């Protein structure tokens, strides 16, 4: 059993009448890279700020390394934050920025000098001591912000959308650097982002937030392959979602038949479904295949609307006979059909993910 | 944490409340109340409620002062606009460092004492002043022109004192004007004048209004310019208020004129806000 480093126990947060987080229970394990993922306003940043102590909880408890820190001031908690847009002190040199936390704690100067040197080495900014933040590139400023937090040897490092200000290429590079840094140091990272791609690339575990509630927790792979709700399916990766009704259960083959839009029949492995149950069926673009001949099951007639080639892959947007747009990713050797061709799209039974529950037919 | 926060809040808000309350709100409130009182013949104030002070403003003598002041303020504003637009559009074509340098040199005289600079105009404008001497010396004129102690002198002084107030906000508006906008207008077949009136003016309207406000309103009150360069012959609203407070000692009447001026100012500010102007830019343009 892994050690729990941060524990949120029945935490509630509200501003006046406005409830941001109704109830949150969460265990964060030592040494893991946990991402809080969700759209803006979902409560992920509030959660982070409650862990750092910059925000008070309305009720409930927060434990850090087994100790109840609910009423411990932010200045005294052994966690540090890397802020959105870095929040570097622009009037101080890089050296002064990094040493700030230790100076405040009145650590002796010779120790500070030594540790600043270590930190600069760690983030590969040797020789930048005397510069001001404004003289650094975005990526370099980012590394200073990380060093400034890490020098205090926090038990947990909190990162609040740290990469959002960087351009695409730098973002990619920093994702890798951050992940490597976390592995090297073995410190727990709690990372907040609204960017699903960032979350998938770096995290050990992802926690999907929606409206202050955890929608689903899991490894990136789990979330991508087995989203439980339509929201998660939509938010992580591209998806094609069909709404349908279970119309037949076949006990012999242990399958269930789903009718989509009154016409299309799809077959699923039966998992104790009942006839008449409304479900949503999710298919990833790479699991859809374009074929010229109709197959009896798991097949929909479509018309090609657009072919998109983006270098690595070819994508097709096709429209079904009932007017739904589908995203399809082609394999390298798949044939590319001209626009307006009428074809069929098919999929393998086991690739269809069923999104169940009340949630399924929302929106 | 809570405690130090509340101490900090007290330190940062209490002086502000005292300042705004005692030094801005209270004096204006007092002037407002005063404007409904009566004065006795010895300059004292009798707390009887009356509209007489406002009624007096409609008197022909005072209406003339109002008209004169507004006319001068209007002409001043107009001339400032006529100088500032070309000025700002020209420096827009210069390099950025040159622009900064030019604006600094616009600012410098404005930050030195305006009364002393106005005094400089006497030396230039009077009958035997530098300008007349020069013009007569070059035989352009045979007898000296009267350049001061009249409207001309006052307007020169006003434009001179208030010009930077127009250039500054207008320049920040014009410099933000996208070059491609002007190109687009040209591309669509507009000539320079059409481009100016159809594109430049509408796009820089808040800046223009900001400048006009900061020129027009002070121009009503600048009594020392009409004193020095108008020779005290022309009575402006500023002079009228000054006289009511210092020589005629009819404070309630002076207060009524001031309240009227405040109301006029507020109407201007409302208009300015309506066309999308920001309050901070009014003072922040400095």
């Amino acid at each position, binding site marked *: 059993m892994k050690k729990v480093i941060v524990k949120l126990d029945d935490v509630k947060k509200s501003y006046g009448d406005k409830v941001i987080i109704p109830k949150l229970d969460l265990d964060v394990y030592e040494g893991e890279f946990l991402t809080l993922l969700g759209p803006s306003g979902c409560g992920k940043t509030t959660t982070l700020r409650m862990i750092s102590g910059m925000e008070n909880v309305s009720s409930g408890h927060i434990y850090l390394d087994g100790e109840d820190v609910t009423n411990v001031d932010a200045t005294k908690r052994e966690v540090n934050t890397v802020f959105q847009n870095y929040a570097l002190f622009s009037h101080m040199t890089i050296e002064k920025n990094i040493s700030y936390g230790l100076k405040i704690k009145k650590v002796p100067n010779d120790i500070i000098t030594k540790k600043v040197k270590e930190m600069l080495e760690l983030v590969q900014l040797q020789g930048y001591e005397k510069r001001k933040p404004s003289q650094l590139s975005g990526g370099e400023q980012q590394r200073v912000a990380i060093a400034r937090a890490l020098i205090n040897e926090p038990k947990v490092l909190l990162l609040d959308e740290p990469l959002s200000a960087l351009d695409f290429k730098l973002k990619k590079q920093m994702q890798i650097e951050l992940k490597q840094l976390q592995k090297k140091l073995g410190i727990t990272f709690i990372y907040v982002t609204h960017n699903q791609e960032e979350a998938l690339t770096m995290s050990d575990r992802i926690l999907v937030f929606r409206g202050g509630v955890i929608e689903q927790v899991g490894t990136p792979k789990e979330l991508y392959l087995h989203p439980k709700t339509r929201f998660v399916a939509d938010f992580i990766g591209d998806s094609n979602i069909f709404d349908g009704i279970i119309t037949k259960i076949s006990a012999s083959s242990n399958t269930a038949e789903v009718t989509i839009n009154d016409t299309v029949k799809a077959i699923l492995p039966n998992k104790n479904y009942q006839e008449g149950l409304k479900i949503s069926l999710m298919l990833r673009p790479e699991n859809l295949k374009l074929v010229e001949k109709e197959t009896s099951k798991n097949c929909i007639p479509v018309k090609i609307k657009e072919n998109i080639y983006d270098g690595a892959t070819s994508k097709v947007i096709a429209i079904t006979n009932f007017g739904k747009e589908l995203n399809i990713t082609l394999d390298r050797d798949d044939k590319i059909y001209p626009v307006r061709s009428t074809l069929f799209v098919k999929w393998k039974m086991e690739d269809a993910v069923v999104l169940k529950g009340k949630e399924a037919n929302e929106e | 944490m809570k405690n130090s926060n509340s101490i900090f809040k007290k330190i940062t808000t209490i002086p502000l409340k005292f300042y705004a309350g005692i030094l801005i709100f209270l004096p204006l409130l007092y002037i407002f109340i005063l404007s409904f009182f009566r004065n006795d013949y010895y300059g004292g104030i009798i707390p009887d409620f009356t509209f007489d002070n406002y009624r007096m403003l409609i008197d022909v003598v005072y209406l003339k002062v109002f008209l004169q002041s507004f006319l001068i303020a209007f002409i001043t504003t107009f001339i400032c606009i006529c100088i500032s637009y070309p000025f700002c559009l020209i420096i827009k074509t210069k390099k950025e460092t040159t622009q900064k340098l*030019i604006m600094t040199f616009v600012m410098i005289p404005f930050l030195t004492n305006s009364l002393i600079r106005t005094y400089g105009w006497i030396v230039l404008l009077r009958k035997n002043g530098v300008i007349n001497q020069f013009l007569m010396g070059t035989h352009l004129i045979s007898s000296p022109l009267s350049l001061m102690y009249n409207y001309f002198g006052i307007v020169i002084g006003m434009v001179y004192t208030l010009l930077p107030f127009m250039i500054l906000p207008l320049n920040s508006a014009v410099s933000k004007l996208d070059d491609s906008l002007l190109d687009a207008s040209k591309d669509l077949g507009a000539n320079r004048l059409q481009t100016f009136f159809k594109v430049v003016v509408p796009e820089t309207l808040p800046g223009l209004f900001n400048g006009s406000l900061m020129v027009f309103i002070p121009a009503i009150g600048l009594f020392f310019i009409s004193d020095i360069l108008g020779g005290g012959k022309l009575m402006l609203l500023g002079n009228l208020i000054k006289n009511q407070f210092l020589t005629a000692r009819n404070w309630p009447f002076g207060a009524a004129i001031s309240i009227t001026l405040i109301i006029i100012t507020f109407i201007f500010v409302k208009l300015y806000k309506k066309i999308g102007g920001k309050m*901070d830019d009014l003072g922040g343009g400095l």
Partner: protein
Amino acid sequence: MKKKYLHNLFLLLVFAFLYLPIIVLVIFSFNSSSLNIVFEQFTFRWYHVLLENRSLLEAFMNTMIVAFTSTIVSTIIGTISAIGIKKYNFIGKEFIQSLLYIPIVIPEIVLGISLLSIYTLFRLDLSLVTLIIAHITFSIPFVIISVRTILDSLPSNLEDASSDLGANKFKTFWYVTLPSIMPGITSGALLAFTLSLDDVIISYFTAGPDSNTLPLKIYSMIKTGITPDVNALSALILVVTIIILMTSTVLQLRKLRKETEL
């Protein structure tokens, strides 16, 4: 080419208009004739006379006392108030904020007479103190706006970052907030100082008989008859302000260049 020539000519004319009175004053302060009419001979005489004119020097001292005191007080109050407005909500905040624009937009004379009235109401005799209070009154809004502009441009999480790194409210203010808004404070203070030096109208109503400032002194002398030593003094004041302003501009530019170069 011709267009550019015309453009530059226009700029030149505007600058001539702006600088002519200043240049004339400086030139005539070295004129041996006391009539300000024709330049006769170069002389330092009026500067010597000036040093002996007790009342002018006294007015100069008053001007400096008022300018320095009002600048210091309005900068302190303006700075902490700007922080208070930025950080906290309090009763009547919007009303107070709109009050702050009043000294900026209303004609100075109205502010002058309303302060005079309130002094009279409270039976305060006009003196250097009432004059300083008046100058503080019209300077504070400018300082607040100047500081708030910088505050608004700071990242909102700067103070969070400081407390996250262990600094309490006061340490955060001292080590992070204050140095970060320093440019706004200095430009606010500079503005307050020049506004104070420049003011005629409000001082006219709020200065006592013994607290004449230079502009007031010169104003009364223009009416009664100017002596050439006033030329010398005016020239001195103009030149000194211009030198101060130019140095500060050059220093700023140099600092800017240094920071972008490194």
